[in-house]
């Protein structure tokens, strides 16, 4: 096995182009499990940890540009205002040691339907930046996940960054697991309200072969939500939203939970996320008035 340690992005892209089947490694929290258990023997490992650009974050127009290799700990510490849903999700990832190493780029590269970062990226309409020796391109998260563990990324491309839109309203994340730490989600849900465009975003994890949205639920809530903020959503509205979110799930039974439980929990999380968001939204409206 060859081990490559590029120190610039240019070198990294050349390495990936020369070894399209090479496996990029950053925090190692997924890749090393496969190596330790002999599940994978890649011909080449490409260590991206020495590429400075991947570990940086900053403002890019009205987006926050998050380098694909920024560990979850940094997201929790620094991005709770500029990316609330992703920061909340990051806080639930595994354990402190794993959050010190794992990153959104790894979640996107592996594209497990259970990855904690996916629901917030879908809900907030984030954009994924891919790069290769051919150039850079941007793909909306909503078009990134194609089928089970398959994404829009080409073999010679690396995931370089995620562009997170400036929040324009409450953002929530909820996740079901057997304990608070070290949990691969049984089901996860993220909700983002955009008060300016008066739109709603959703993201659902662990309930289909890929992370998915609940588009009918988004449209329903965008039309029914009291954007003036005078009233809290009625019980029937909240219940209907939960039903619409749960209706798009296509879960499986596995050792973490049954399909039925996953669908049920999705409705519960959607109702809760809406109630939290509406309460937060009203507070915001009252403060501004």
């Amino acid at each position: 096995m060859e081990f490559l340690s590029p120190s610039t992005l240019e070198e990294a892209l050349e390495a990936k182009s020369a070894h399209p089947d090479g496996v990029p490694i950053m925090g190692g929290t997924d890749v090393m499990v496969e190596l330790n258990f002999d599940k994978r023997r890649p011909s080449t490992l490409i260590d991206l940890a020495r590429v400075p650009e991947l570990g940086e974050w900053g403002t890019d127009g009205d987006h926050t540009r998050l380098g694909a290799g920024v560990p979850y700990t940094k997201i929790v510490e620094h991005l709770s205002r500029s990316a609330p849903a992703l920061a909340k999700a990051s806080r639930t990832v595994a354990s402190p040691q794993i959050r010190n190493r794992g990153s959104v780029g790894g979640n996107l590269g592996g594209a497990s339907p259970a990855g904690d970062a996916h629901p917030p990226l879908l809900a907030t309409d984030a954009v994924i930046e891919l790069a290769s020796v051919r150039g850079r391109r941007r793909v909306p998260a909503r078009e990134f996940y194609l089928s089970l563990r398959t994404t829009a990324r080409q073999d010679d491309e690396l995931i370089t960054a995620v562009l997170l839109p400036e929040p324009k309203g409450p953002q929530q994340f909820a996740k079901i697991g057997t304990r608070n730490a070290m949990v691969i989600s049984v089901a996860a849900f993220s909700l983002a309200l955009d008060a300016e465009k008066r739109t709603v975003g959703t993201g659902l994890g662990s309930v289909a072969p890929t992370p998915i949205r609940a588009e009918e639920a988004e449209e329903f809530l965008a039309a029914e939500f009291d954007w003036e903020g005078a009233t809290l959503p009625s019980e029937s509205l909240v219940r209907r939203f939960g039903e619409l979110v749960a209706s798009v799930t296509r879960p499986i039974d596995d050792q973490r939970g049954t399909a039925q439980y996953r669908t049920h929990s999705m409705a519960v999380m959607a109702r809760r996320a809406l109630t939290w968001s509406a309460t937060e939204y009203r507070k915001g409206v009252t403060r501004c008035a």
Partner: protein
Amino acid sequence: MRVNVNVNGEDMTAENVWPGESLLYVLRERLGLPGSKNACEQGECGSCTVYFDGVTACSCMIAAGQAEGRAVRTVEGLAEEPGKGSDRTLGTVQDAFVEAGAVQCGFCTPGLLVQTDDLLERTVGAGKGAPDDAEIREALAGNLCRCTGYEKILDAVRLAAGRRAESGAAHE
């Protein structure tokens, strides 16, 4: 491949390393530092926790090649005056674990010691006061003790935090 890594302040070289093996394997099998324990090899248990460039990480999830030129601090580096065997003076956290009876089979202990050391560094050491129980539980959530001796472990962390705060105050 050859891997040069600074471990506990000492520059070390491991030869004939397979690039896909873990830093944990390098430490234990090639550098003669068996303090970090190999239990789950998938980041679940925290027994192999080390400082990697100052940040705690599971050494089973770091590829050997990634450690080239980096600084690692293992449980062997926590002693305040590193020496051999019984001549070694233990650090505050280690002493507290012994006194509180927080060591049963001992397999999880090295990881807990490093993670606790980091917690105290970020709290008491940063002038923020002793961590409360919620902070302790959160910090140690990735370290499993299969003897389930968690109450004594929490006692030990509280004891170490208190002592560390006192010694900090005494220095001022």
